[in-house]
């Protein structure tokens, strides 16, 4: 299943909506998108992942990449599916992101 990526930057908030599966083959496209939206120096990155059914190592590593690229960046995962949350917990990524059911306010 392919990955659909939609992005928008609003003030200091970058939004990316993902649908499908984020695996090794689709991760480079997301990485490119993240790289591009971080160019605007947002303070928060909001990932809409309600329709994301699977996130592999490559996808999680993009979150780290974003934090490394822009220290202090707040990353929100909005409505992740249980499988994604579970992987975040087991691998320790959970501590580095904000998991939420609601879209955060604009920064």
């Amino acid at each position, binding site marked *: 299943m392919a990955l659909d990526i939609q992005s928008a930057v609003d003030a200091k908030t970058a939004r990316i909506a993902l649908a499908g599966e984020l695996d090794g083959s689709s991760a480079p496209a997301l990485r490119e998108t993240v790289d591009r939206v971080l160019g605007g120096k947002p303070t928060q990155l909001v990932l809409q992942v309600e329709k994301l059914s699977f996130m*592999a*190592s490559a996808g999680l590593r993009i979150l780290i990449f974003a934090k490394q690229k822009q220290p202090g960046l707040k990353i929100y995962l909005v409505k992740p599916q249980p499988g994604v949350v579970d992987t975040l917990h*087991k691998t*320790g990524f959970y501590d580095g992101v904000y998991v939420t059911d609601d879209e955060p306010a604009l920064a």
Partner: protein
Amino acid sequence: MDERIDFYPTHEVGGIRFRRGRPLPFGATIVPNGVNFSIFSSAADSCTLVLFHKREAEPFVEIEFPREFRIGDVYSMIVFDLDYENLEYGYRLSGPWNPEAGQRFDKAKILCDPYAKVIGGRDVWRAKPDWSDLYQHRARLSFDDFDWEGDRPLEIATKDLIIYEAHVRGFTAHPSSKVSAPGTFAGLREKIPYLKSLGINCIELLPIYEFDEWENNRLHPETGELLLNYWGYSTLGFFAPKAGYAATGSLGMQVDELKNLIKELHRAGIEVMLDVVFNHTAEGDQRGPYISYRGIDNRTYYLLTPEGYYYNFSGCGNTLNCNHPVVRNMVLDCLRYWASEYHVDGFRFDLASILGRDQNGAPLANPPLLESLAYDPVLSKCKLVAEAWDAGGLYQVGSFPAYGRWAEWNGRYRDSIRRFIKGDAGMLGEIGNRIQGSPDLYWYRGPTASLNFITCHDGFTLRDMVSYNGKHNEANGERNNDGANDNNSWNCGWEGETDDPGVNALRSRQMRNAATILFLSRGVPMLLMGDELGRTQGGNNNGYCHDGALSWLDWNDVKRETGLLRFFSNLLAFRRAHSVLRGDRFFEHRDYVGSGKPDISFHGTRVGQLDWGGRCLAFLLCGKHATPQDDDLYVAINMFWDGLPFQVPQAPEGKRWRVAINTSMPSPEDIYDSKGGPQVGSDEIIVGGRSIVVLVA
């Protein structure tokens, strides 16, 4: 300013661009825009890098190292524009086939990098492998981007350690564990509160380097049970964690999951010690598979007979050539990697005496590897613990080359305490030494050189030690011929499980006796997973091949064995509360602080009168000699079968003795909390048959 470009492609094969690499470090290292591959072989004629997309049978490219890419005996190259997440790599080495000269090159084989940080192929525990795959154990890249959030090794003083020896899978694989991912690093992480409440501060994990649970798999001829390599003492790759121990192994995230476990254990004040197996590899003898070392540089990595066969000091087919400078460096690189990249706090070396043999197998007086480990700057705060013997007959308990750094699994402690508990007479001189941290063995090293244990993964569990006279290993499918025969165990009157309340009461008491002696001895105590819950293996003393109820911890026992668990957790708390039990110096048997009594004194049933040929031993520890100052403790051990009156020494001025432990009493009067139990009303106490009383004042 423009970014510098130091690495640029100079060659191309099939659209893949590459250039000469850097010989160090060995292994695959991510560099700007590419990956540096470096591998050593002293005898190969040529070397080819083989690159795969993850899990694919056929490589997408094979690149032979051009002659100019070899420096000395090291082949290195940088390959550009690789998809790191989706890459697997291996090597083909071409060279002479001359087994008598120790060379066994075979270019048809694809070999795993000895420095592989991640190895695929056994991603999910017990998932049946594709045996047709030419490349079974597939090297992958690792990423060092884990967020440790300031974590570092804990550096707990060795004298204060309380070690818990556990099997990652066996700890939570049982459905009763109720964790979200049974049998994994993540499952273990969910049970940290249990470890914390038990009171241990170091967990020693049975091997977690990548191994193949399918190695030597077979069906039990009668029961049909699938027997696997469950323990994992058979390393495929020294730098890679066992993928099948990670719930996220199928995602290739075992590195992150293990690091997350270690970080959380550290947050709970628990150190992590790894049981490491450098004495042999999973390649077996000349009949074994080609995985890595054999096909890369057989003569360097293994101890070989003059005829080119494998020396077998490990009992597992081959012996790693640990004191060859190249192999020695690999061991050092490996341990430094685990200490720095995984924040591991210490290592227990399986069959460590092999690490002190020279290239012909002879024991060395001054083994370079052991010395290097002892003085290594990166490992300087790591605990180093030797299993100070090997399967080739070298037994070095008390004489392992220590360089002031190494501790030892004290096998003599285990054997002597077991014999004393089962009622052997004439043990008191021996037991006196063991309780004091074995000054007869470690007089020049101190009591923290003595890692005290009565049970470990190898042998009977504590409950089985008091329930079986002999081993019952029929389930291993070797007609009960495997496993040790000298168990020093006693079944308390009936072989195996029984409803007899008298036998069961005695067993409960004997388990408490063993635990009390262990945690009141000077040195470093180690507890076997599940002994605190009375775990049984049904008399099997060699559970290496059982991935099932026989070897898993049954968490229902937490509710069934509340009394025993309470005894253990209070006993561990007692040890933590009393500095007089945890000194890092040997007792001097004299008063050097002016307290009016020596730091330790031994007694019999009468104060100052010890019957060395008997079965009763009492000792008094003077708390004023401890740092910080502590209470006095009086310990009366009666391993005679009847109760006996013990004369109690005078309590410190202005204080009264209180009962802390009495193993002859039913729970909860068998052990009291830190405030102590009832006061002792007279200068004589009755210590029940096969019982221990501990008083505190």
